[in-house]
C-alpha cells in the first residue's frame, strides 16, 4: 500500500551508500515489491517533457546498444520505434495549425487540425513501452514457453529458451516485440524483472523526473489514474482519458486490461496506438473449425466420387 517515500528516505541521510538499500522501491516509488502481486506502469503523458531519461535509463540498466544514431526529421523523435534494443520510446507529436493546402486525402502526416498556435504550444509526448497485457498475445502465441508471466504479473522472454521463431512479433497488437538479428532471439521490455526481484523499481520509472512514468501495484495505479483524469477534467482538459484500463480503449476485444497503461489527451492513433485491439487467440478455434469442416466436406465428396468410379484397366 501507499508508503510515503520521504518517511523511508529520512532513514538514509547520507549521499554515499556502501550497501544496497533493502526495498529501495519504497523510497523511490512508494511501493513494496512482493511476489504474487500485480505490478505495472501508469504513464501519464500530460506531464511528460520528452527528456528521454527513460530511454537512457533503460538502455543503461539493460545494456542495450543504440539502434541508429541518425536523425529522422520527425520532430525530436530520433529513436523511431520500440525494437529489440529499445524498450522505452518517447513519441513526439507536434501539433501545428492546419495548412491551407491540406486535403482530406492528403493530411500532413502526424499533423491534425486544431486551434492552437504553431511552435511549442501543441506538443504531445508519450513514453511508449511494452503493455504487459493481461492476456498477452505474444505469450499466448509462443510455442516454446519462452514468454511467461512472472510472479509480478509481468511478461518476460526467457532468452535461454527462445528459438527465434518470430511468431510473437506478428501476434503483438502494439508492435512491441522484435527479433534481434544478431542473436536470433525475441526481445522486449522485462519491466525490469531483475530489479523487481532485488526490490528496486524499474529503471525508467526511477529515472523519470516528472512522475510521468509511475510504477506500482496495478490497483493503486488505476486509482491514481482515475483521480488524475477527474482532476484534469475539472481543470478543463476534457480530452484526458485512460488507455489500457479495464473497459477503456486499448483493453478491448477480450484483452481485459494492460498492466502498463497510459493517460492520453488525443485519440489513440495519434500516439500510434490501436483504438480497439483484439485478442488473437480467439481466432484459433474458428479458423480450425472452418478448415477442418472444409476438409471433411471435400473428403466426403471424394468418397462419393471414388465409390461411383468404374474400374478400367487402361
Amino acid at each position, binding site marked *: 500500500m501507499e508508503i510515503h517515500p520521504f518517511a523511508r528516505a529520512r532513514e538514509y541521510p547520507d549521499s554515499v551508500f556502501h550497501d544496497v538499500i533493502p526495498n529501495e522501491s519504497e523510497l523511490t516509488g512508494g511501493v513494496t515489491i512482493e511476489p504474487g502481486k500485480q505490478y505495472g506502469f501508469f504513464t501519464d503523458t500530460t506531464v511528460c517533457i520528452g527528456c528521454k531519461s527513460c530511454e537512457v535509463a533503460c538502455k543503461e540498466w539493460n545494456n542495450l546498444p543504440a539502434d541508429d544514431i541518425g536523425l529522422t526529421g520527425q520532430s525530436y523523435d530520433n529513436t523511431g520505434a520500440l525494437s529489440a534494443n529499445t524498450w522505452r520510446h518517447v513519441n513526439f507529436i507536434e501539433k501545428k495549425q492546419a495548412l491551407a493546402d491540406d486535403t*482530406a486525402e492528403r493530411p500532413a502526416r502526424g499533423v491534425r487540425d486544431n486551434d492552437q498556435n504553431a511552435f511549442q504550444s501543441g506538443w504531445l509526448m508519450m513514453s511508449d513501452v511494452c503493455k504487459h497485457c493481461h492476456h498477452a498475445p505474444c505469450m499466448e502465441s509462443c510455442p*516454446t514457453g519462452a514468454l511467461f508471466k512472472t510472479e509480478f504479473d509481468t511478461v518476460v522472454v526467457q532468452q535461454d529458451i527462445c528459438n527465434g521463431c518470430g511468431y510473437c512479433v506478428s501476434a503483438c497488437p502494439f508492435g512491441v516485440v522484435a527479433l534481434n538479428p544478431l542473436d536470433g532471439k525475441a526481445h522486449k521490455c522485462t519491466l525490469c524483472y531483475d530489479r523487481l526481484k532485488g526490490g528496486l523499481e524499474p529503471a525508467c520509472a526511477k529515472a523519470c523526473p516528472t512522475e510521468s512514468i509511475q510504477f506500482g501495484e496495478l490497483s493503486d495505479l488505476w486509482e491514481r489514474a482515475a483521480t488524475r483524469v477527474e482532476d484534469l477534467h475539472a481543470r478543463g482538459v476534457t480530452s484526458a*482519458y485512460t488507455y489500457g484500463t479495464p473497459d477503456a480503449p486499448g483493453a478491448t476485444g477480450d484483452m481485459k486490461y494492460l498492466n502498463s497503461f497510459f493517460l492520453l489527451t488525443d485519440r489513440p492513433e495519434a500516439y500510434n496506438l490501436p483504438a*480497439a485491439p483484439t485478442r488473437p487467440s480467439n481466432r484459433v478455434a474458428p479458423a*480450425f473449425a472452418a*478448415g477442418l469442416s472444409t476438409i471433411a466436406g471435400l473428403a466426403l465428396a471424394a468418397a462419393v466420387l471414388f465409390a461411383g468410379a468404374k474400374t478400367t484397366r487402361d
Partner: protein
Amino acid sequence: MPEHRDGRAVSKGAASPEAAAWKGPTYYGRSQLKPSPFNAWVVGGYIFLAGLSGASAVVSTVAEAVQGERGASIGRKGRYLSMLAPLVGAPLLILDLHTPTRFYNMWRIVKRTSPMSLGTWILTAFIGGAGVAVVAQLGVDLLGLKWLKRIARLGSAPAAITGAGISTYTAALLAATSAPYWAADEKGLGVRFASSSIAAGSAALALGEKSRSTRRTLNAITGIALLTELVATAVHHKNVKAKGVGASLESEWAHIEEAAVLGLGVLLPLGLYVASRRLGDRKRAGAVSDLASLAVMAGSAMLRVSTIRIGQDSASRPEVSLRFSQPENLPKKRRA
C-alpha cells in the same frame, strides 16, 4: 469518451469504398505493427508442402477405404507423397527459425492458444503415422513382404486424420496474429487453405496416373476443391474489405495472388480438365491432365507465399492496421 475523438466521419455503408483505409492521423506514417519476420518463400513453401502431404494422405486413405484393393495404387502413392511434409517441410520450418539449433524447444510445451504449438504436435503425430505407413510400404515394394500391406493401411488412417490437421492449422497460424489481412477473416482463410490443400493433394496423386478412370476421379475431386477455393476467395476478399483492410488487396502481392493463384492455380487447370476429358487421344489427355496438376500445385504454393506477403504488407502499413483496429471491427457477441 472525449468528444473530439469522435471526429472521424462514420461511413454509412458497411463496406463503402471510403472505409478502405484509415484517413486519420498516423505517427509520421510509421508502422503501428511489426510485420512477421517469416521468410515468405520458406514458410509459404512449408505450408504448401504440409497441405499437399496432409491432403494426399486424406484423399488416398478415402480411396483405399472406399475402393478396397482397387484403391491400393492411390494408397501407395499417398503414402509416399505424405513424406514431403516431414522430409522437406519440417527442415524448411527449422530453417526459418532465427535460432535453428533450438528447434527442439517446440516440444517443451503444448499450448492451445498457439497454433504454432498445436501444429508442432499435429505434425509430430502425422510424421509418426505416415512414417509407419511409408516404412511398411517400402517393405512391400522393395522386399516383397506382402504381409506389411495391412500395416501400411493401418498407418494411413492416423496419417489421414492428422493430415487434415497439418493441411489446415496453418490458416489458424496466420489468423491468430495481429496482422490485419490474416486476422480480418479467419474462417475465410481456413476454407481457402483447406480447399487449396485438397486440390494440391489430389492433383499430386493424379500426376502421372496411368488409369484413366482413377485420373478422372482425382481430377473431379481437384475440380470440386478448386471451385470451393474460388468461392472461398471471393467471400474472403469481400470480408477483408468489409473490415477496412481492402487497401492491402491493392498491393503488388495482391496482384501476384490474382494472377498466380486464381489464374494459374484455379482457372487454367479447370479449363485443362475440361479439355483433357474431351480429348480422345489417351496419351495427350494424360499430358494435359498432368499439366493441370502442376498448375494446381504451383497455384497452391503461390497462395501461401502471397498470403504471407500481403499479411506482412498489411501489418507494416499504419493506414491499414489503424483502420482494422477500429471499435466497429470488435467481435460483436463478446461485449458484456
